[in-house]
């Protein structure tokens, strides 16, 4: 009898967790629709959004550029090791550019963006809620979603593709520094093979689309977790952690789906 009881309570807990997760997904979707419908203020008073682009984008520049540079440099070092065994070290530019533009640029920039800007957005909104600033706005008949959440959302959505492009550009420059300047791969072959292999629509544009999708996903998760946080110190810290974990997983899962859609279509 005791065994049945404990089994039942365990099953109940499992069902409860699943139901509450599904409920949260539904709530988050409703939140996004409401957010999009009330974005008028954020777009009309564009200075609100500009301040958030500064916060999410400009302040993330250093970490994005430095990481991109080092990722490109490591790619060039490792790629050269492998390619020179086959006597194909001239293809180093192709390797660096394609891996950055297609995958590493959007994904690593997205992960960095989630931990640098996403966590900050969640913590800020969560603290505003904990210190009852959100309730105060509602009291003054100011819609906190239009005034606080929407500018942060659009600021993140605008920043992310630009950051990913800068990451890729910095990475290719890093690959050039190590590959051409340090190892001594021929500069002409490095650039011309890269240009012959990288297609603007299939590779670069698809990378930009990826970074846009990641930008929407990360900022959506960040503002939702902040807005949904339990208004205590512990609740905000939990929400911040959840933002980083959920957005990282979302980026990796979305990347798999997008790659499967974009790059496995055969010849076209």
């Amino acid at each position, binding site marked *: 009898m005791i065994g049945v009881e404990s089994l039942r309570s365990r099953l109940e807990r499992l069902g409860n967790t699943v139901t509450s997760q599904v409920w949260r997904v539904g709530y988050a979707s409703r939140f996004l629709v409401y957010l999009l419908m009330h974005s008028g203020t954020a777009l009309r008073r564009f200075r609100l959004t500009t301040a958030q682009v500064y916060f999410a984008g400009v302040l993330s*520049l250093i970490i994005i550029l430095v990481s991109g540079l080092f990722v490109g440099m490591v790619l060039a070092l490792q790629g050269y090791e492998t390619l020179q065994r086959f006597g194909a070290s001239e293809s180093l530019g192709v390797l660096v550019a394609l891996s950055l533009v297609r995958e590493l640029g959007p994904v690593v920039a997205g992960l960095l963006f989630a931990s640098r800007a996403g966590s900050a957005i969640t913590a800020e909104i969560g603290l505003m809620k904990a210190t009852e600033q959100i309730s105060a706005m509602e009291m003054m008949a100011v819609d906190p979603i239009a005034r606080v959440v929407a500018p942060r959302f659009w600021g993140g959505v605008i920043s992310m*593709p630009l950051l990913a492009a800068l990451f890729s550009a910095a990475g290719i420059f890093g690959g050039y520094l190590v590959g051409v300047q340090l190892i001594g791969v021929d500069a002409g072959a490095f650039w011309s093979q890269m240009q012959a292999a990288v*297609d603007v629509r299939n590779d670069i544009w698809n990378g930009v689309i990826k970074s846009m999708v990641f930008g929407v996903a990360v900022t959506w998760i960040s503002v939702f977790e902040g807005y949904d946080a339990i208004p205590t110190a512990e609740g905000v810290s939990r929400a911040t952690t959840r933002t980083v974990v959920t957005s990282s997983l979302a980026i990796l899962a979305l990347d798999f789906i997008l790659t499967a859609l974009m790059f496995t279509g055969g010849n076209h």
Partner: protein
Amino acid sequence: MNRSMIDLWVGVFVAAGFAGLLFLALKVGNLATFSTSQTYQVEAKFANIGGLKVRGPVKSAGVVVGRVANIRFDTESYEAIVSMTVDLSYQFPRDTTAKILTSGILGEQYVGLEAGGDGVMLKQGDRIRLTQSAVVLENLISQFLFNKAAEGKDEKK
């Protein structure tokens, strides 16, 4: 930091982001090399295209003069029809030969054009009559073995 400084930095950031995109499109990708120039389209029938891909290069004397636009299968002749877009500044005689060649041993396959001697040039929508298919390794090996076997027979006689 005051408002106008924030605006300034955001402006710098957005400009840098677009500069990065432009760098990717022009320096890393091939936007500058082909898509802007005017082209004309020609077709060629091949018995076998090997590993030729859409967007593969079309070369003449080693210079890239165009790209493979489309590859389809003709159900009447059971052959492959390859459409190529060739840069308008490169005109070829009507009796040009199209071959499917491989760059290097492991390299990609491309269409090689060899100019003929006709005075009339290829126009938009024309078909190249003289073609040579890709070399299929298996056929090459079996041909070689067949020849060897035939030689062996001759010696025995």
